[in-house]
Each structure stands twice: as C-alpha cells, then as structure tokens.
C-alpha cells in the first residue's frame, strides 16, 4: 500500500548561531530532540496495486477527508511541546496613506473589546526588532508619520479569548475611528524601485551573432531617475559603455520607426489592472517563544521557507532582552502555495512578532479575508506603450519598441524582477530583429505588489497578442498566418539575444489551434449562437504565447532510498503548492525505478546534512572568478535552496528525485540484476547474451532486457542490500538557465550527472558523501540570458457579447499546450483548466482600484471582488489539448503559468471580432465595451 507520510518533523528548518542573519544550520542531533506530530493521515489507494501508475494525487485522500494539511488548521495542541494555552492576535491596518498617523484610539473599540496586549512601532524600536534585507521596511507605521502604503500595519492587538478576538475583528472591518489622524501630507518618496533597458540589434542572421544585445553587452539600468520618476538613460554613444550603446541603438531603432524606415508602425497604449491572488486559504500561522531558551518556534504556510526564515533571522538578529532569540525553529504546513502570493510574503514576520510578545503561549495570527485583501500581495498593474513596425506588404515584423511601467506599491517586493521578466517576454512568440524595451518598476502608496502567476508576462504578452490581432485585421491577413510567419523559430535569438532551449514548437501549436473545431466551425457556431441569442453577437479570438519558466537560480535537493523489501522513500525540499508536485515527484522516480515512490515527503528542510553543502555570494550576481574559486571546494554550490516558484515544480523540483533514482538504478538495481541473471554455471542465463545498461527496460513493474527473466523490485532491492550496492542517493542540483553538471567516482566509473552534490547509501541507512571530481556550473554570463526555458500555449475562444449591456459570455475555450513530457497528464490538464478560469477572471471580472476605495481601505471581500464562478466559465466546453512530446526523453516543462495567459488576449480579440471594439484596458467590463461601441 502506498502512503504519504506528512510529518511536521522534516518540514522544519532550524537556524541558530551568533549571527542569525547569516543562517547556520544546526546539527541533526538537535533536530531529533523534536517530538514528531504525525497529524496527517496516510493516503491509501493513490497508486495502483503494483504502484506502476497512479489512481489519484498523493494528497487526494487527505484533502477530501479534511486532514490537517494547511497552516490555518494547526493549533498549539497539534504540535508536540508547544504550549496549549492559546492567544490570538490581529493586525490593525491603516486604511489611508495620505495623512499623518498619530496613534491608536483604542476606546473606540468599546470597553468589552479592549485587547490584552498591544504592540506598536515603539515596542519594536525598544526591542531593536526591525525588518531588514529583502523586507527592508517599517513593520508598523510610526506615530507622527504618514503610512508608507495603504494597508500598512500600525499595531497588533492580542486577545487571550477567542470569542473576544472575533468580535474585535468584526468591529475593526472598515473602522476608521480607531485611528487618530493629523494633516494630509505628500508621499515621502516615490523614486522607482528600478528600471531596465533591453536593446537588441540583430546581425545578418536571426541565429546570430547580434550587433548588440543584453547577452553580448550586459544588462542596462538608468543613470538616475528624474523628479517625475522617469528613468534617465545613458548618453547615446555607439562606441561607449553598454548603457551608452543601448541608448545609441535603442534611439536609432525608434528614430527609424518614427521616420517610417521600418515599415508601418502600429502603436498601442495598454493598461492592466491590480488584482488579488484570492488563494482560498487566507494567510495564517502560529508562533511561540521560550524567553528562557531564546527559542522562537513558528508554524507557517509559505512558498519560500528558507527565504522566510532568513527574514525572521534578520528581524531578531539585533534584538535586545527580553526578546533575544538564539534559535528559530520553523515548521511548515504541507501546502505552501498560493499562485505566488505566499512567496516572500511579509506575514511570517508578524507571526514571529506575535510569538515574541506572548512568551509561554501559543499565538495564532490569522488574516480574515478583508485583511488579506488589505495586506496581501497584489498583481502588478502595468502601463504598456507598444510600437511594432511591420512590412505592410509581407507582414514581416521589423522593429519593436516598448515602454512599460509596473506599479509595485509602497513596499519593495519583486517589482524590479516582474518588470524585467515582463519586458524580456514582451515580444511573445515572435522574432523581431530590432527591439528596444524599457521597463520601470514604480513605487506608490498602493498595497504592495509581488509575485503572481504570469509574473509580468501575462500583462506584456496580452498586450502584444492584442496588437498582433489588430495588425492582422488591418493588413487583412489570417491571424494564424501572420503569427506563423513571424514566429520565433528554433535557434532564433530572443529579446535578450539568446536562443531558446530546445526546439521551438510554437508553429505546431498554432497549427493545432487552427485545426480545432472551434476555429474550423466558427461560421456555423456564430450563426447558431446568434439565432439562439437575439441581441447578442458571437465572436472568436485567438492568441498564442510562450512563457518562460525558471528563475535563473533554482536549486533542488532530494533523496531516494530503497528498503530491502523494495519500498521507495522520497524526500524533496520542493514545496507542494497544490499543483501536484508531490505526485509528480513520486511518479518521476518511476522513470528509473519502475514504479512510484511509496512514501513521499515534500518540503523537507532538515535532512540534507549528508551533502555538507556550503555556499557564498549571490547566485544571481556572482562573478565568474568568484564562482570558479568556489567551485574548487567540492562542497560549494552557488545556491543551496530556492523557492518553489516560477513554474519550476516539474522542471527543477522533480529533477532531483529523477537524478537520485537514476543513480540507484545504474549502480544498485542494474548490478543487482546482473548478479541474479549471472548466477549459475558459465554466467547463467546472462552468460550467452550481451547485457548492457542501455538495454534495461521496466515492463509491468519488472526489470528485464535482452531476454532476461523479469525481476521484481523486491528481488532487486534484496540483492542490492545484500551486496552493498547503491540503495539510496541524495542529490543537490543547481540551474542557472542551464544545469550544473559534475563527475562523480562511483562503481569504479566516472559518472556525469546533472547535479553538483551526491551522497549514497549502500545497503544501510548511512550516507556516504561522494566528492565530485569535476564540476561545470553554468557560466556567470548565463545570468544575462534572462529567459531561455519556454513552454508555448495558445487559445481559441468563442464568446458572445450583448450589444446593449456589453456583457461578455465565454462560450467555449480550446487550448493547445506544449510542455515537453507531461509527468502526470491529469494534473497538467487540471492546472490548465484552472488557468483558463483565472484568465477569464483577469480578462473580464477582477479589478482592484490602486488607491482610494481600493483594497487598502479594508472593506474588500468576495462580495465586491468577482472571482469567476462556474457560470462564468465554459465548464462543459473547455478543451485542453497537449502536444505529444518529441520523444519520451523530453524534459517536463514548467506550465503552471503559461496556461492562464493566452485566454486573456483571445477574449479581447474575440470581443473585437464580435463587436469591433478594441479594449486596451483590463478588465474588459461591460461599461468599457458599451463606451467602445
């Protein structure tokens, strides 16, 4: 029986030492002092009897039976050793950021709702607690200052009684009387968080070499920002520095376009809105603080555990008595995701504070939905000004210029990264020989924006796909032909001057979209729809995008162990975000071991000591010299751990388990099979055949090849354990737009793997570290690539528009996806279906005002924020078509984000097809459509 064991014990990370900010991993002995809390049930039945296929998700049973798998489920009594006495905390969030905040007016709560304790900025100052590093901000607005942003916390209230907390939270909703305010003041500082300029001029061939590109010449930032917050770029100089050359070539591109030398120029001004992630579980966590031991314990549900605990370490590293912390014990719920909204969220810092100010108690800090809207990260709103120069005769794209700005709100998060990812993907699936794209991450008093599915590319590629549709209509060209004509082909260089990884299959995706019934039958569908719906017009829209995946610095840690009776245990540090990474990882092990992992533990943080990893520097900014120096130490890696984000679940997080399983197969199961097959006189059944590793095949759960007797995993495992062969492998891998490879001496051979650290088990539980003899980290230059791993996705949307009300009704969606080799096809199509619904919401329904009357005022909830319900989605007419991989060796590609994107521009293009209105401001509300008509 397969099972998923979900112990809090392994999903925990301890940090300690004199300098917490530097992170020091404790020894296993201290970890073992913890009492295990096995509070999640096993998952019976998820795999078939032979465990060679799956029936459902590893965590499926737990989720349909209401098991405790979310951070919000956990209480002190669930965690061994935590105080049973509970306190409850709530944040007081400023609904305004224009006036001076003078302090709290607690009497406004009423006598019966006075908190048991309160903490404010003064308390943090007195204890020398401060957010630094990534979260460099004032955690509480200081009296006498203007809040940095709408929704900035001003205080935390504590209640020891649960019912009183709930009453207080109800009273706090939309309550402005609790704040003492002074005069209106201008924002203190709105200097942008950063800006980039990506300029590229191709040489004679799309395959390169380029005349100028970010890859060749380096990334370019501005010299400074004007008072108006506009970036000031380098002085144009063809022979000057990289920034000066960028200005020279970029200005030249724009001058030529303006002069009509590049063809007909299509200009577009496109706006996208701020939206909320609306992950269904509002952020919540527990904390407890043992002042005598200086130990702070946390229970969190996040996407980036190591980064979060680093941030908590930064928070307390200079703390004065009685808030000093010598040890942080982080526990993590088995689900950590939320479409990016729980990646580098600031909420855990407040959970940590809640613990520090309630010593001896377990404190729960849980946002209600109003607070989640008010404090939670948002999707960046974009202003995009596109210009695309096209040969009006041939339809060839000649030059592209774009200026985009994304609004990061009032606290730095990932805004500069969102800006550059949006910029470097702005040309969508197209090749353009000359391009000049500027991207600015602006600061404002809006609720802070951060990572969210699509990460800037949703915005920029939506704009581009609408612009291309506009061009096709204007030039009278077929929308598929125009796209195919300009598609980025294999080896062609992208906006940064780099070739995409692997074959480009965008044209295939376009072909499949065009062949689909929704497009082929569009005339009849239109006639039928309009006959059945008087007053409504049918339209059809198409769009196709290729979205990058990977973060340019991604790490994976995994171990696979085989017991003597053939049970496979998998540990991974990947975070289950709901997309099914645990299931996919279990499945991917089967590529080499013939069947799924029997036990799957995700989010494992404290089981990697055997690798003895060391690191230094910043993986994204390291020099080649420093990397080369580090590489001389066989323990050194550029990055030990990274968040599960950027669609890396399939591509990176399941890579580690696959590599570990390969080592077991190659140096454990294969020699074990040879041993068994070779028994008997003159080499037994194998004696007369040429048996080699490449001939090995798993057939119906048994290993065979070259006509040898099929062997069960149990037989092989027993032999491998008896003979001291490899029965377990622990690995670390690193990807910087390319995999690290290293050579390891093992089994008398030199084995090259796409990992940089390896430890093995040989018939026991003990791990033996194998030092690599050679390593090839991706060049530091690769950081300039910006983007090279892509998955392509296209959508055809049929929709109806009410000509009077402007209401849009999405009738059918046909989506075509190319994602390499899907590990679990049911998971892939399910994620795609969800992406389509989210795209429909983004295109038509979801919208948050950035400032006044927006979510920062604390009055927003799902009664006024429209998340698509089933009636808004063509539930029965949604088809997802996944291209077959080119071969079974295709890598799985990250597809969690790309699948929500094409439906958005396809809807906008469909609206134009239906009623002739070009909506360039999201969402396409009935009001905007009516006005456009």
């Amino acid at each position, binding site marked *: 029986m397969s099972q998923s064991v979900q112990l809090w014990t392994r999903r925990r990370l301890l940090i300690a030492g004199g300098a917490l900010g530097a992170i020091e991993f404790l020894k296993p002995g201290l970890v073992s002092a913890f009492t295990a809390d096995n509070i999640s049930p096993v998952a*019976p039945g*998820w795999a078939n009897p032979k465990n060679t296929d799956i*029936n*459902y*998700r590893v*965590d*499926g*049973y737990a*989720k*349909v*039976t*209401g*098991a*405790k798998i*979310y951070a*919000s*489920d956990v*209480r002190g009594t669930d965690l061994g050793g935590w105080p049973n006495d509970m306190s409850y905390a709530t944040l007081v969030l400023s609904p305004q950021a224009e006036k001076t905040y003078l302090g709290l007016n607690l009497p406004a709560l009423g006598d019966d709702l006075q908190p048991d304790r309160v903490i404010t900025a003064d308390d943090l100052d007195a204890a020398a607690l401060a957010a630094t590093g990534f979260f460099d901000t004032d955690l509480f607005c200081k009296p006498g200052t203007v809040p940095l942003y709408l929704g900035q916390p001003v205080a935390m209230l504590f209640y020891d009684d*649960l*019912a009183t907390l*709930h*009453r207080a939270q109800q009273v706090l909703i939309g309550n402005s009387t609790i704040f003492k305010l002074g005069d209106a003041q201008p924002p203190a500082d709105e200097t942008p968080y950063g800006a980039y300029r990506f300029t590229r001029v191709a040489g004679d061939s799309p395959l390169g070499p380029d005349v100028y590109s970010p890859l060749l010449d380096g990334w370019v930032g501005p010299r400074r920002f004007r008072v108006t917050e506009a970036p000031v770029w380098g002085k144009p100089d063809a022979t000057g520095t990289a920034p000066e050359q960028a200005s020279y070539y970029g200005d030249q591109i724009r001058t030529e376009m303006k002069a009509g030398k590049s063809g007909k120029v299509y200009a577009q001004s496109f706006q996208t809105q701020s939206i909320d992630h*609306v*992950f*269904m*579980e*509002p952020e919540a966590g527990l904390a407890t603080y043992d002042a005598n031991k200086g130990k702070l314990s946390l229970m969190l549900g996040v996407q980036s555990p190591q980064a979060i605990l680093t941030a908590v370490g930064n928070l307390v590293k200079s703390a004065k008595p009685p808030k000093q912390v010598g040890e942080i014990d982080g526990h993590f719920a088995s*689900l950590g*995701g*939320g*479409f990016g909204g729980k990646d580098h969220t600031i909420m855990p810092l407040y959970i940590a504070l809640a613990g520090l100010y309630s010593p001896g108690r377990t404190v729960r800090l*849980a946002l*209600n*939905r*109003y607070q989640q809207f008010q404090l939670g990260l948002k999707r960046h709103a974009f202003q995009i000004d596109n210009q695309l120069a096209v040969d009006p005769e041939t339809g060839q794209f000649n030059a592209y210029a774009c200026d985009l700005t994304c609004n990061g709100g009032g606290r730095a998060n990932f805004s500069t990264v969102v800006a550059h990812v949006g910029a470097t993907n702005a040309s969508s699936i197209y090749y353009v020989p000359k391009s000049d794209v500027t991207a600015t991450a602006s600061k404002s008093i809006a609720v802070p924006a951060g990572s969210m599915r699509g990460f800037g590319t949703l915005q920029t590629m939506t704009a581009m796909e609408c612009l291309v549709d506009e061009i096709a209509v204007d030039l009278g060209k077929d929308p598929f032909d125009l796209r195919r004509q300009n598609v980025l082909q294999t080896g062609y260089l992208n906006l940064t001057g780099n070739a995409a990884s692997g074959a480009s299959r965008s044209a295939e995706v376009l072909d499949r979209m065009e062949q689909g019934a929704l497009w082929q039958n569009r005339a009849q569908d239109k006639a039928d729809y309009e006959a059945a719906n008087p007053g409504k017009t049918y339209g059809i829209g198409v769009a196709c995008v290729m979205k990058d995946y990977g973060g340019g610095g991604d790490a994976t840690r995994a171990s696979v162990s085989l017991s003597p009776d053939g049970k496979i245990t998998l540990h991974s540090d990947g975070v289950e*975000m*709901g*997309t*099914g990474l645990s299931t996919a990882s279990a499945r991917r092990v089967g590529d080499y071991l013939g069947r799924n992992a029997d036990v799957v533990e995700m989010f494992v943080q404290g089981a990697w000591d055997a690798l003895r990893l060391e690191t230094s520097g910043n993986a994204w900014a390291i020099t080649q010299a420093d990397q080369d120096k580090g590489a001389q130490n066989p323990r050194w890696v550029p990055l030990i751990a990274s968040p599960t984000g950027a669609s890396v679940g399939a591509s990176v997080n399941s890579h580690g388990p696959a590599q570990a399983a390969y080592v077991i197969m190659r140096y454990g199961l294969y020699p074990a099979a040879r041993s068994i097959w070779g028994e008997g006189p003159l080499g037994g059944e194998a004696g007369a055949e040429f048996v080699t590793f490449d001939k090995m095949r798993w057939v119906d759960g048994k290993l065979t090849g070259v006509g040898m007797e099929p062997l069960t995993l149990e037989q092989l495992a027993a032999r491998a354990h008896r003979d001291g062969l490899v029965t377990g492998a622990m690995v670390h891998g690193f990807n910087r737009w390319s995999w690290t490879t290293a050579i390891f001496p093992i089994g008398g051979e030199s084995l090259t793997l796409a990992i940089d650290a390896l430890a093995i088990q040989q018939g026991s539980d003990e791990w033996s570290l194998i030092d690599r003899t050679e390593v090839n980290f991706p060049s530091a230059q690769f950081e300039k690539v910006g983007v090279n791993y892509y998955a392509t996705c296209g959508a055809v949307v049929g929709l109806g528009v009410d000509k009077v009300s402007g209401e849009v009704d999405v009738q059918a969606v046909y989506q075509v996806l190319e994602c390499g080799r899907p590990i679990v096809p*049911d*998971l892939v199509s*399910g*994620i795609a*279906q*969800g*992406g*389509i*619904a*989210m795209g429909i919401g983004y295109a038509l329904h979801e919208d948050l005002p950035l400032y006044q009357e927006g979510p920062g005022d604390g009055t927003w*909830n*799902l*009664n006024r924020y429209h*998340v698509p*319900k*089933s*009636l808004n*989605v063509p*539930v*029965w007419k*949604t088809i997802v078509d996944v291209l077959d991989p080119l071969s079974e060796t295709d890598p799985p590609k990250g597809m969690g984000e790309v699948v929500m994107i094409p439906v958005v521009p396809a809807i906008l293009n469909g609206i134009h097809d239906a009623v002739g209105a070009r909506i360039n401001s999201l969402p396409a509300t009935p009001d905007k459509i009516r006005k456009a008509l």
Partner: protein
Amino acid sequence: MAKLKMTVNGKAVGPHDVPDDLPMVVYLNDILGLTGTKFSCGIGVCRACVVMVEEPDGSITTRRTCIAGATSFADSKVTTVEGHATHGQLSAVQQAYVDNFAFQCGYCTSGFVNAGTALVEQLRENPVDKSQVEQAVQTGLGDHICRCSGYVRYFEAMRDLILSDTTLTKEG
C-alpha cells in the same frame, strides 16, 4: 452565552458554553478541533465553509458556517468533511473527486464534498432527466468558488457519478 449541544458526524457533542455570536466554523475548528471545515471569505460567498445538515424530516441541506452562529445549529445533525469516509473508505462523492483529479490546493474541497453529497441525496429523492444532469450539477455546486481548478473536473466528476447511479436519474 448558551449551552450548546448537537450531533456532529454521528456523535453527540456538548453541552458547551458558547457565545451567541461565535461563528459555527470557529466552533467546529477551535472547540471541536474539526478543522476540515474551512474559513475563507467569512461572509458566506465562497462556500468553502459549507457543512451538511439533516433536517427533521430526514432531508439533507447545506449551510454556510462562517455566517451562521454556532448556536443556530443547536440540536442539529451536522456532517462535516471529516464525517463522510467510513473505516477509511471514501464516500462515492469523495472517490469521484479524487479519481477525477478535481482539486488542486484543496481548500475548497470540503465545501464541494458536502454540496456534492447533498446533491446526490436530493437527486435520490427527486431524480432528474439524464439530459438535465449537467444543469443539476450547476445548480448544486455553482455557488461554490474554486480558485485552482476552473471547476471542470469537479463538475465532470459529479456528472459521471450521477449518471452512473440509476437511482439518481430518470429517462427523459
């Protein structure tokens, strides 16, 4: 403050001293320790917090627990998501959802389990034409919000389950 007792998942619970304004979801989560019922919007829109209630006449309905006080469930027979599987065996609705990979994060799943089960029970009393099954699923589940799945697999799971049980439909 009231002395509250009820039946939850077939077991008598209480009496508990419970304030009149304590939401049922908090009572379930924090007093009874049944955290399968989820708090999400808190205003009765998303329906992640839905539980099943057996009415005095034996009929099955659903109620939202984030907007209803616990005391309003006094003496009721309530089934939460924890109460559907028996001896480790999933109910038909639970099994249909996992077999169809219906959910992803799963935070909305308890509401869908209860709503789907209530729908099956209602159809058992009043079968629908086979041609109306998709509409029945829409009516039964359509108010529930799921952010991950796009609803497709939840709905297909329920449709296929209903069509596979001849007692739930009639020939049109």
